[in-house]
């Protein structure tokens, strides 16, 4: 049992100006060396306006707010859907909002909606996180 969480509790964090250098750092840290994230001529030949960020970079950025909201000890699920591309210079604003708090056999199950929007208000990631506390 925990009364730490209530439906509607909300946690927010914004990372500003995510740029090519961030894509390169994430490539180096993660091992995702797909050129489409750092080689502009390659990205244009594939039909894109420019390079774009790894979806998993945005999921990682979102994980900061999930960690702050729910902690990692009790995290059971983290799901992300990549709904729009992150372009060089974008701001990434993450919101984690508690959508359900239920008592179960294992403890208190806390469900949260995870969204990341860019500076135009466009959703780039939607997802969910679940903790059992």
């Amino acid at each position, binding site marked *: 049992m925990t009364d730490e969480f209530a439906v509607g509790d909300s946690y927010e964090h914004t*990372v500003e100006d995510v740029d090519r250098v*961030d894509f390169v*750092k*994430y490539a*180096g*840290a*993660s*091992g*995702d060396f*797909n050129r*489409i994230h750092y080689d502009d001529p*390659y990205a244009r*030949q*594939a*039909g894109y306006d420019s390079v774009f960020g*790894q*979806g*998993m*970079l945005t*999921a*990682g*950025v979102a*994980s*900061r707010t*999930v*960690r702050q909201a729910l*902690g*990692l*000890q009790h*995290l*059971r*699920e*983290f*799901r*992300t*859907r*990549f709904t729009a591309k992150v372009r060089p210079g974008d701001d990434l604003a993450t919101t984690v909002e508690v959508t359900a708090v239920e008592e179960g056999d294992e403890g208190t199950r806390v469900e949260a909606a995870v969204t990341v929007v860019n500076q135009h208000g466009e959703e780039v990631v939607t997802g969910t996180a679940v903790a059992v506390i």
Partner: protein
Amino acid sequence: MPAKPIAALKERIGETYRTVEGFGIERGKVAEFARAIHDASDIYFDETAARDAGYETIPAPPTFPRTSYFPRYRPDGVDHSLGFDLGFDRARVVHGEQEYEYTRPLYVGDELVGDTTLEDVYQRDGRNGGTMTFAVLRTEFVDTDGEHVLTASNTRIETAGETAGESK
């Protein structure tokens, strides 16, 4: 469209391969990854801070299992395709969804192996014509005691756009 017929891809649904071995969770890599995702929480850098926050030791960020893509954790013959060469055109492949289910946090000092199953392959019409092909790959990670740590499911999409260089 993938270079292989969809029927041939569907025949492989349910196949499982060892795709990750010797995936040691290294302190320096955790710190580097935490910086790269713009989460400089001291639990990712300082063992005392991690213990004070209730962790056994320094945990890895929730999406850290992505680093299992480094070639040094891959058995021979396994690359980014995770053992399933689906004939996707890599320039048109986008990452559609990623899901993690955790039994416990991943910690510095853990060493994992992973087995990947092709869970599903299907096609949809693209918004601007053409065909989009989806593949769902699920990887189960266990520790050296054989205990489940997490499951990662990755949905890849080969988009309907023209292949790079097709107009040549």
